[in-house]
């Protein structure tokens, strides 16, 4: 599925690289990410609180997006499994 989402994932990663010029995409994505986490996760958990903290969640979001962007080939599913096992 990440193959079809690759252009979007790439744009989000790119917008984070140059925040001064193109920060809108990153801000929108971060807002929506936090909204979804609030809807679906236990907000009282410390780990979830870390995800919600905008100053601390950069690394996990970027690594998750990068993992997805590297798994768009035909063997992407196997690659993703290996990445998740090592995570």
């Amino acid at each position, binding site marked *: 599925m990440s193959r079809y989402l*690759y*252009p979007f994932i*790439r*744009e989000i*990663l*790119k917008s*984070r*690289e140059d925040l001064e010029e193109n920060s809108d995409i990153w801000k929108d994505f971060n807002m929506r990410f936090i909204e979804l986490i609030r809807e679906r996760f236990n907000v009282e958990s410390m780990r979830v609180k870390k995800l919600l903290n905008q100053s601390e969640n*950069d*690394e996990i979001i*970027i*690594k998750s*997006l*990068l*993992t997805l*962007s*590297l798994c*768009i*080939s*035909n*063997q992407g599913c196997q690659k993703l499994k*290996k*990445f998740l*096992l*090592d*995570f």
Partner: protein
Amino acid sequence: MQNKLSFHQSSVSLEIIGLPDYSNDEYKDQISIISQWKLNIIDKPLIEGKIEHLEPIMNAFYIYSNLLIKNKVPSYESKLIDIKAENLHLHNIVLKSSKPNVKPLILKIGNSLLSDTINCFDQLNESSKVRIKKTDVTYNYSKRLRFGLNKKVKFFNFILPPFIAICSLILFSSSLIYFYSPFENIEKKK
């Protein structure tokens, strides 16, 4: 006449130039004998080389991306290429020429260009028209290591609960000895 094959991913394109190996019954449009390759990243200098440079560079990118995702120190150094992370979004690549008196080429790429480049290499690996000798050292290693760990974890999960249960049973039953006095019972019966 040499064959040319191109692999594109957003801002990066990889071109492979070479010939088919007719002695191995290959088709006209296949490439087995690679004479040259070019990696073109938009707004960056052209990177080109011979077959002996392609595999180390591909391996360097794969190893580096693995290190980056696995939360380890993202740094890779070799004779041909060094890749280091400047920060979470920027990666420094130093390409060292095999020719003497040629200065190393320094590139700075972001996460988007890094993923484009690796996806181009993935396309090349999966292409049926290009045959290159592959040595998937990193993936095989991590897979074996991971499966070894999984087996150990499964074994411990299997053996640990009954072991704890038996130990607690012994401890509990041995503590009951203090409450049991056989002489009192014999006197009562009398």
